[in-house]
């Protein structure tokens, strides 16, 4: 794996956004060859989305030939509910950029047949040629998407019931009323994300530090599903100082020492303006 450690949340968000920007531009997406991007929700990626929007508004990045696949969505929450992941993606990303609506894919938590909806989502990913870069976060319990502790590490897109930890963590978005938090979600599986050609995990904040430790310094374990990416050929973890608090000093020093190598991935930061013919 690559472990990229930045001083704070803003720098980590910016590094991640630059990385995504460079990957998209280097790919030279076109109408015949879309860049497929897997996307997360939650508070961690907000800074990254803000930077990506900024790059778009400056004319340096276009999402015209990008297809997106979100990781998850609540079951039974109306699509226009302010806490649905559709609302999140619209307000925090889609409405500010030039992505075409038919190129965005979010699981429908109100589908009449949830199982069929999950299977169809997997097929859409396949039809799009697989995911080029899957961006995700990590829960305090080490979960990727909503693959709660105990999820199969080869799982596919399916319905999942949320763990208590996750419901409690989400309560802050529902007026701190546990009874209003949805208990089921549709989520991509660990296996679905493992199929991506590259995986980027964003981890910031001291409350995620223990999960990061379990994910990268302990063994592959279905109780900490992010640990599955130890077996992915191309994973990059981007974190801030606080998220490294539970790691060994040796681990942190090693990867910090590699920053000059990592930074070559984001410097120079490319722009579509350079590729306009």
């Amino acid at each position, binding site marked *: 794996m690559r472990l990229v450690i930045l001083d704070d949340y803003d720098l980590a968000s910016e590094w991640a956004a630059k990385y995504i920007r460079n990957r998209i531009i280097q790919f030279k997406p076109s109408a015949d060859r879309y860049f497929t991007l897997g996307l997360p929700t939650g508070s961690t990626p907000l800074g990254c989305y803000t930077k990506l929007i900024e790059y778009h508004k400056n004319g340096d990045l276009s999402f015209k030939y990008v297809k997106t696949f979100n990781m998850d969505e609540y079951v039974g929450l109306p699509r226009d509910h302010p806490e649905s992941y*559709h609302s999140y993606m619209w307000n925090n990303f889609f*409405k500010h950029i030039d992505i075409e609506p038919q190129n*965005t894919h979010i699981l429908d938590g109100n589908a009449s047949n949830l199982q069929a909806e999950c299977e169809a989502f997997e097929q859409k990913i396949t039809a799009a040629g697989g995911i080029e870069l899957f961006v995700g976060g990590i829960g305090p319990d080490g979960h990727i998407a909503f693959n709660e502790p105990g999820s199969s590490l080869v799982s596919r897109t399916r319905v999942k019931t949320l763990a208590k930890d996750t419901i409690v963590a989400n309560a802050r978005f529902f007026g701190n009323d546990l009874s209003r938090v949805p208990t089921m979600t549709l989520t991509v599986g660990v296996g679905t994300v493992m199929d991506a050609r590259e995986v980027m995990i964003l981890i910031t904040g001291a409350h995620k530090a223990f999960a990061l430790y379990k994910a990268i310094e302990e063994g592959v374990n279905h109780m900490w599903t992010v640990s599955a990416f130890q077996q992915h050929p191309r994973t990059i973890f981007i974190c801030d100082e606080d998220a490294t608090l539970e790691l060994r000093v040796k681990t942190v020093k090693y990867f910090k020492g590699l920053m000059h190598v990592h930074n070559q991935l984001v410097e120079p930061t490319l722009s579509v303006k350079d590729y306009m013919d």
Partner: protein
Amino acid sequence: MPSNKSVSDAPITQFVNCRILKNHKLQWEDLWVREGKILNPEKLFFDEKGFADHKVDCGSKIIAPGFIDVQINGGYGIDFSQASSDIRGGVALVAKKILEHGVTSFCPTLVTSPPDIYHKVIPELRAQDGGPEGAGVLGIHLEGPFISEEKRGAHPPKFLRTFKAGGVADLMETYGHLDNVAMVTLAPELPNSAAAIRELSGRGITVSLGHSMADLSQAEEAVQNGATFITHLFNAMLPFHHRDPGIVGLLTSDHIPPGQTVYYGMIADGIHTHPAALRIAHRAHPAGLVLVTDAVTAMGLPPGRHTLGQQQIDIQGLHAYVAGTTTLSGSIATMDMCVRHFREVSGCTVEAALEAASLHPAQLLGISHRKGTLEYGTDADFIVLDDTLTVRETYIAGQQVWRK
């Protein structure tokens, strides 16, 4: 990009680079319009996979719902209370001109007049949608003749009336028709007014208290019978007294039925109300404030002598008096001037000033589900203003109907 909308093929316009008045705050958001209504872009994106056909750059300006004037007696030489030979043409002229002031809907107001005037004029002043020809007519505001003699202000005394039996009979005999009527101002202390108030509010007509000597308990009783508005607060009513608050006391009355709001009109032209009084009323009951112009025939005209109802008035600068007296005879301020003046003297937020001229009048008339807001699905009647709250463009049903 190929058109890809499943609900409608009508063109979609997206107003960008603007601050819109939404949820009582000015927010940097785009405004989307289709088929004359405000469109929900999230629904368009996810349900229809649709996108805008045209983008309009608003240059960082403010977009607010169009102003609604519920008390305007005429302007530009037109007097709504006169049975002229071309009543509809007169209304149309005013409706067109007030687009410049950001007014997209209004209630043409008739002052106290003899029954034959009402019988002639009311059927001609039909409610109609606005458009490029002018602001929309929501309905007529009948200010009188069932008002107090002592507080008649500029209204001609010989045409004042009282309720004989009360109720429908008096109303019909006087007015002839009640179709097209949106509001009636009356004095609740007149005997038998209760039946009239109930009759009118039962028909969905807003009942307003004004030109009255009523004390607070009479006013409260009227509210309990269905009155919801006060016509030009402070003017033409008993002054506030600390042991006898009068109609003004409705602003903080504890006898208002739960769930009901009493709205009050204020002429913020810098003349009809002292700024300190404006502030007292606003601070006591900010949610009820409705800015009105009470504009008279001479609004928009040069200084001199003009006709209002059955009387003559004199214009001197920004003042309009009953000819030969110092009794104010309505104002010649425009709605946008009132909004700016109110904001300046009350120190309120831009949002509060804009809502006092749009959201609150819509709520008063019970039409806030389609006018007075920029909520999805409501009529796309809006104005573009700069930071000095000067109106730069006016839109009705999503179409630009005036620009500076």
